């Protein structure tokens, strides 16, 4: 008899999701899906609003990565003003975005995934959480809390508050950076670099325990997409898009994000509220790709900062297709963020007072892009002659990864689910592959609600045989 397994809700991710696994008569996995079960409607309810409100309005999409939305939205508004913002403002936005990537990556790695990585995929569920980590390896838990704190404090020093700072505005930023604040940020960075390097060493030492998962999480081959700069280095704020195939060949390069509609389109699937973007020329599903830390590091030649580039050397020896290595890529990026912030804060004009360009709206549409912690983020707005929004289209990092997550669930379920009887470790591996992507579902559906997960075992007649909810 065929059955369906339901994991609902999926835990230790950001947003609401469930997973269904279909078993056939023999008890083997026939099909599996990742369902995003929420809808928020940001694209719709911002219609009619003055575009100057958009950065702060759009930042409300997320409490973890509001800065990336702020930045992408402000850049779309810069395009509506048709201005080039002062270079200091661009660098200050860069610093803010890097601080956020560091804190968000710390949340993903330490709070959400380290319980699986330190305690093991089959560990007692009661202990498989941050408190369990703190008990077994207090330094690791402290490091995670500290890294996140540093990222948040940098955001607060720059933007005035940790979550949803209104400092990033169309045309630049609202206030220049003071030397006192710069010095306070600079004083934090050596510790951030040290903790990141220490965590990379630790993770490298335990990675061999997960050889099986690394293999299972790599059975899906996809292309990668992300921003790169003219030096072929990591770029989180500006730059052009590159697409690389599973064999490392560059499929498209120098793509201007402004023209995204020419090469990216979205597919709607009946089982999820989250749309699946794909690379238009290759069609669906051949044109699917992954974004985020794994994609970014695969796409570039180097990070552009010395310690991160050292770590990148080891990363190059790993299987570039395995989603498991999102974790290691994430740690490298934390290191990169602190190094890059240090470099940016030492640029000569970082304390300049010229941080905002003023203009009337000069263009009827604008596209803004940035690299969010989870991948490339696109905001596209159109306005009427009075500057009121008539259309907004958002393509969110987690959305780009949607199809890949869906198929990864299938691959991992096939590898680990062998009978109708569910073991906790099996379910956890299915969830763990989702966690490698660090999805932010409330962002990607621009949606409402709390994050959670569900696994369901469904019979061929559609009856739910077994269900695990969190």
């Amino acid at each position, binding site marked *: 008899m065929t059955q369906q397994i339901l994991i609902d809700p999926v835990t230790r991710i950001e947003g609401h999701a469930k997973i269904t696994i279909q078993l056939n008569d023999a008890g083997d996995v026939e099909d599996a899906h990742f369902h995003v079960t929420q809808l928020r409607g940001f694209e719709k309810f911002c219609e*009619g*609003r*003055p575009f*100057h*409100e958009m*950065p*702060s*309005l759009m930042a*409300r999409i997320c409490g973890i990565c509001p800065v990336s939305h702020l930045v992408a939205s402000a850049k779309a508004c810069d395009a509506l003003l048709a201005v080039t913002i002062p270079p200091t403002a661009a660098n200050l936005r860069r610093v803010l975005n890097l601080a956020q990537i560091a804190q968000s990556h710390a949340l993903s790695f330490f709070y959400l995934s380290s319980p699986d990585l330190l305690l093991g995929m089959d560990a007692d569920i009661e202990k498989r959480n941050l408190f369990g980590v703190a008990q077994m390896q207090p330094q690791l838990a402290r490091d995670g809390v500290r890294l996140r704190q540093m990222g948040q404090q940098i955001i607060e020093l720059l933007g005035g508050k940790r979550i*949803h700072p*209104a400092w990033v*505005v*169309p045309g630049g930023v*609202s206030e220049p950076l003071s030397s006192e604040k710069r010095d306070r940020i600079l004083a934090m960075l050596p510790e951030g670099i040290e903790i990141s390097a220490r965590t990379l060493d630790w993770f490298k030492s335990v990675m061999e325990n997960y050889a099986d998962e690394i293999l299972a999480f790599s059975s899906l081959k996809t292309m990668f997409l992300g921003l790169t700069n003219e030096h072929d280095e990591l770029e989180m704020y500006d730059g052009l898009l590159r697409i690389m195939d599973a064999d490392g060949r560059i499929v498209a390069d120098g793509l201007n994000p402004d023209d995204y509609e020419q090469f990216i389109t979205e597919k709607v699937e009946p089982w999820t509220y989250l749309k699946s973007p794909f690379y238009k020329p290759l069609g669906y599903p051949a044109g699917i790709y992954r974004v985020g830390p794994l994609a970014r590091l695969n796409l570039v030649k180097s990070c552009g900062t010395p310690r991160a580039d050292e770590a990148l050397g080891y990363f190059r020896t790993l299987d570039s297709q395995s989603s498991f290595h999102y974790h290691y890529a994430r740690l490298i990026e934390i290191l990169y963020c602190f190094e890059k912030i240090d470099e940016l804060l030492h640029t000569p004009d970082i304390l300049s007072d010229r941080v905002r360009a*003023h203009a*009337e709206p000069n263009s009827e549409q604008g596209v803004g892009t940035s690299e969010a912690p989870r991948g490339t983020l696109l905001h596209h707005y159109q306005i009427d002659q*009075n*500057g*009121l929004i008539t259309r907004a289209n958002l393509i969110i990092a987690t959305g780009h990864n949607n199809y890949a997550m869906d198929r990864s669930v299938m691959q991992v379920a096939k590898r680990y689910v062998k009978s109708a009887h569910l073991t906790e470790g099996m379910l956890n591996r299915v969830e763990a592959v989702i966690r490698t992507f660090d999805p932010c579902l409330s962002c990607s559906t621009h949606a409402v609600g709390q994050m959670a997960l569900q696994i369901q075992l469904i019979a061929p007649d559609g009856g739910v045989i077994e269900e695990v909810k969190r």
Partner: protein
Amino acid sequence: MSRVVTLKINDQDVSGREDETILELARENGIFVPTLCHLEGLSDIGACRLCLIEIKGVPKLMPACVVRAQEGMEVYTESERLKKYRRMVIELLFVEGNHVCSVCVSNGHCELQYLAQKLGVDHIRLEYRSPKREVDASHERFVLDHNRCILCTRCVRVCGEVEGAHTWDLLGRGIQSRVITDLNQPWGDAESCTSCGKCVQVCPTGALTAKGKAVGEMTKHQGFLTTLALMRENDR
């Protein structure tokens, strides 16, 4: 010459001229009375009902902005009953329109938000109406957002009484009421508007704002009203 009268506010003896309102007397004596439609330099209409007070011997609550001082009056500006009424007035204002402080250009500089905090409105007990209202951004320099309008009519009065243009007025009745420019034309087409910006400065919320302001950036300056009133008085 007006007669001087003595009366009690909150059991405190105060004296003032008989043509003064209780609100003026209270403020002269450092007694807090919340207001939204009142603004020094404009006529009073007693519309917002936030300045309600209790007067001994009068069963009804009275608006302090329009009640004149009388000899021997005993006035109370703080009581559980008044606090309850004032909180309810604020809550009703919040549910009537679409006030989302966190993404408002006037966040941190809004009189409605300030009074809600001051009067202890930490939650709303009524259902939000969430009406569909429009934004008029047709003016070159200013924006009118009906979502945030509380119909205090300060804009109507400042435009008529101080600027002398009378661009603003009210349309409709009850819950359908809204402020309009000229004969319900888009603001940008209102020929009577001198673009002086007084309406924007006196608006207590983010309903009238300067164009191009991001969230939390709209600050208002109302000092000009008393200065103008004083200068005109001196000219007479």
